[in-house]
């Protein structure tokens, strides 16, 4: 019983199908399953949203179109029109994270984005894209990204050093922000939900009714966590488009 109430237990990874390549373990786990479920949900959502192709959209088509326009507008406003080349990548990131976050809020569902390796890998894919695109498009001039214009020569080395450090720390902050938000939210939810059972079990008589307090807290936390789930997907996507903007237009 105590294990079931452990707020950390929800992050445990269980192997569903044991697989490996050489000495590397590539087992299909509950995490992998939730990735597949999330991606299938996205595909199903987009498939059902685009089957009718009507001029006047229905509800599902409206939602699909809103998600499309939302991400497209975000890219246009941060990275400009040429940023739209990366639209599928940013849209996939946004939807993947959004669905992982939201599906993870359903009780007994694993949250793939609560593992740092996943969020960090997504952040690194962004970093890699930025570096490859930046160097491929601008070559050596891409390094201008680290040299802001209009800075006095005297403090330029310091500024360049700071810019390089901030650039290199991007994938960490990018990945850890999402991970920490998901982790903290889920721990809090599980903690308060666990309190309901613990208080109900531990207390006697009328005092049992005080278990309603953590219940109220859980109910109050839930919409907040749904907001955070959406917000973090949005933040991840908008930062991605900001970074891609740096790759496309390195001069500040």
């Amino acid at each position: 019983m105590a294990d079931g109430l452990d707020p950390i237990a929800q992050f445990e990874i269980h192997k569903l199908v044991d697989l490996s390549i050489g000495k590397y373990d590539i087992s299909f786990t509950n995490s992998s399953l939730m990735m597949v479920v999330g991606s299938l949900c996205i595909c199903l959502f987009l498939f059902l949203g685009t089957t009718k192709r009507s001029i006047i959209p229905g509800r599902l088509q409206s939602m699909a179109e809103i998600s499309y326009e939302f991400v497209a507008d975000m890219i246009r406003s941060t990275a400009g029109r040429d940023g739209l080349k990366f639209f599928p990548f940013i849209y996939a990131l946004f939807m993947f994270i959004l669905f992982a976050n939201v599906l993870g809020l359903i009780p007994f569902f694993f949250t793939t984005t609560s593992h740092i390796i996943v969020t960090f890998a997504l952040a690194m894919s962004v970093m890699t894209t930025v570096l490859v695109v930046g160097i491929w498009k601008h070559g050596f001039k891409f390094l201008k990204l680290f040299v802001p214009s209009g800075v006095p020569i005297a403090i330029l080395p310091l500024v360049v050093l700071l810019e390089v450090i901030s650039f290199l720390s991007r994938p960490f902050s990018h990945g850890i922000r999402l991970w920490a938000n998901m982790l903290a939210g889920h721990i809090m939810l599980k903690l308060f939900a666990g309190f309901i059972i613990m208080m109900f079990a531990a207390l006697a008589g009328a005092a049992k009714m005080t278990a309603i307090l953590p219940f109220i807290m859980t109910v109050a936390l839930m919409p907040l966590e749904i907001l955070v789930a959406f917000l973090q997907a949005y933040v991840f996507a908008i930062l991605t488009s900001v970074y891609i903007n740096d790759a496309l237009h390195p001069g500040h």
Partner: protein
Amino acid sequence: MNAYTIFMAASAPATEHGEHAAEHGKAVFPPLDVSTFSSQLFWLFIVFGLLLLLLAKVFLPRLGGILEDRSNRIADDLDGAARMQREAESAELAYEQSLKDARAKAHNVAETTRASINAEIDAEMEASERDVAKQMEAAEAKIRKLRTAALANVDDIATDTAKSLVEKLFAGKITLAVAAKAVKAQN
């Protein structure tokens, strides 16, 4: 694929796994458990890669196509509306033009009709005036002739009268020639 050693794990109930993990994993915080990284990375790569491919090649073009169709349709409809507006305006202009033309034509017709009627009236008036003048002339000529004839008769009548007067008054006989001579002398 041969190198892959793939085998199915006995999918034991989750509670057993949980207890198992709790026994060994208390020391390791699951998100920082390095032993799970390779499988997570592998499946993230596969699943996210497939998702990206599907979105980029199938779903997003479809969705984009729908949105483009709509904006094209709206643009087309607006174009059509503008064209119809222009057509309506030109039709109105043409209508006004033809109305003006018709009015001018009607005016012309009235004018020419009036003119031709006037000309006809004038011509007829002139003709009838000429006619009247001719008749009057003829009548005058006739009167003149009658008068001369009458005047000529007056002499004869006077001669006859003079002759019969002489014969009555004087019981004498005179010849007409004498009487005529006398009448002429009287004139």
